């Protein structure tokens, strides 16, 4: 079988988990045992649990394993991995995967180490079934590596937003199996002892936003972001920035888009004063439409974009805001 670690939030399975299930369905279909199973770890409210089961039905999952128990109430990667390994080894599993999120990557690294097999991170395609050969993003997404995963069992993470989540042709009636994994004290040493509130909670706002307004060095200063924030606001979107901007302290790091920031996949990305270095591109390439605003018509962001306006963002963005407000006040 193919086993997918499903992450959940307050509403159900996360979008990247659903993408991973869709990806896994393709892998499972090409292998000799097409069964797709899912595993969730930790406490779930009954509402969320019901909704996740609906989502699993839609994704064509045959069995949903739910690891529970008091010891799993706080996140500990090793304990999650122990639960995944227990499930994977209790039947003949060929592939174990998770989304390439911080948690997904962390737990899969533990799983691969425990099973003494290689792990492929940020996979975008899987071709052969035995041994599994995958294509994955390296160099921050600017190069693809073909990698062979020798061993009976392959462990991988799926690059966020490289596939979109689609329902299965045939929905299933997933069987729910609840279990309490066998854990050692060592599995619980590195566990969350408390959670502090942080502005960071908004990364989800950035990664799931339909519109992202991006600002780079071209914004010129911390104050230079006022117009961009207003545009984001008018479009009901979020602000994203380049690394130069966070390094200079103009904006907080949680707004950074790119290889070492968030990966976004909005319907529209308005990239203002951003050159489009590969490390930035790695985070925004999944945007459906890109509009670049830049003084330099040869900037990579401009040549790679679908649309561009050439000129000073400090003149163009206020003019767009003005036009948006004007049309709001006087609808056509």
């Amino acid at each position, binding site marked *: 079988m193919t086993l997918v670690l499903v992450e959940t939030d307050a509403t159900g399975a996360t979008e990247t988990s659903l993408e991973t299930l869709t990806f896994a369905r393709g892998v499972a279909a090409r292998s000799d045992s097409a069964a797709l199973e899912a595993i969730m770890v930790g406490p779930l409210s009954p509402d969320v649990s019901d909704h996740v089961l609906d989502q699993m039905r839609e994704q064509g999952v045959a069995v949903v394993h739910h690891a529970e128990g008091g010891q799993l109430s706080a996140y500990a990667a090793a304990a999650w991995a122990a639960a995944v390994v227990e499930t994977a080894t209790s039947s003949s599993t060929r592939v174990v995967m998770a989304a390439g999120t911080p948690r997904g990557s962390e737990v899969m690294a533990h799983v*691969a180490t425990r099973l003494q097999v290689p*792990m492929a991170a940020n996979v975008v395609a899987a071709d052969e079934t035995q041994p599994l050969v995958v294509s994955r993003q390296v160099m921050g997404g600017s*190069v693809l*590596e*073909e990698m062979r995963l020798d061993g009976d069992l392959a462990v991988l993470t799926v690059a966020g937003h490289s596939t979109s989540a689609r329902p299965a042709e045939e929905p299933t009636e997933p069987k729910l199996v609840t279990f309490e994994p066998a854990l050692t004290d060592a599995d619980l*040493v590195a566990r969350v002892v408390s959670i502090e509130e942080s502005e*960071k909670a908004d990364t989800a706002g950035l990664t799931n936003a339909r519109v992202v307004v991006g600002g780079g060095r071209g914004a010129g200063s911390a104050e230079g972001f006022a117009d961009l924030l207003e545009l984001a606001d008018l479009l009901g979107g979020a602000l994203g920035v380049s690394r130069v901007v966070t390094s200079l302290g103009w904006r907080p790091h949680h707004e950074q888009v790119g290889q*070492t920031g968030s990966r976004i996949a909005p319907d529209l990305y308005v990239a203002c004063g951003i050159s489009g270095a590969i490390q930035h591109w790695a985070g925004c390439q999944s945007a459906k439409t890109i509009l670049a605003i830049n003084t330099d018509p040869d900037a990579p962001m401009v040549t790679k974009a679908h*649309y561009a306006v050439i000129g000073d963002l400090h003149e163009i963005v206020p003019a767009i805001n003005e036009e948006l407000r004007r049309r709001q006040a006087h609808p056509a």
Partner: protein
Amino acid sequence: MTNVLVCIKRVPETSGQILLAADAMSVDARHVGYTVSAHEECAVEAAIQIASATGGEATVLSLGSGDSVEQIRDAVAVGCTSAILVEADGERFGPGDVASAIAEVVTTHEAADSAFDLILVGNDAADTGDFQVGVRLAYALGRPVLTGISTVEVVDGAAVARGDGPDGTEVFRLPLPAVIAIQEGGITPRYPSIPGRMKAKRTAVETVAASVQPAGSGRVGLKLPPTPPSAVEILGEGAAAAPAVVDLLVTLGVVSS
């Protein structure tokens, strides 16, 4: 006193056009410089801060060819106090091999009475992005491990680490020795000073040969994703383009007409 080991990897600095070597097994880095990942720069800074706060040593280690000494000296220039080069043909080492080779060095140092209380690595290497050396190293040494950590300090002999979680900032408290993978975001790396650079030139780099027989990375080859020819539509220049932009926003359904 907390002795910290921080592991860094020499990688091509690739902000522009990337070229592949003729055999497509590596990136052609002849015309670009080299660097380390942003996460590792933060890990180096954390190592220096913890060592100096507790009167311990901050040792920098890199596994790779002799050229990696350049990156090792950069880390000494900002404050690492000793340096180790694990000489190996890095291309033939997969993440599991790197972890085994580093574990071997750590164990040897321990036997010689110079143990590392805390090992810091980057969350993922800038080139191969494997997301696993830290975890594999921790298991090889039988130590607890965290990844995705933005800040770490040592309080009463334990590592207190914070990282972004789905519900806010997650706090961890690990007994030492431990392994922690640092993620850019909570630590600002310092710039080297002139005296720092001078010291880096003089600092001896302990060189050991990796004795691990590498299993390899499983790499079959590299490919550049196809770059479609530019199809950009220029909507206009300057503020005069604003109406065209808003028309586009309407067409895209981002704003209602």
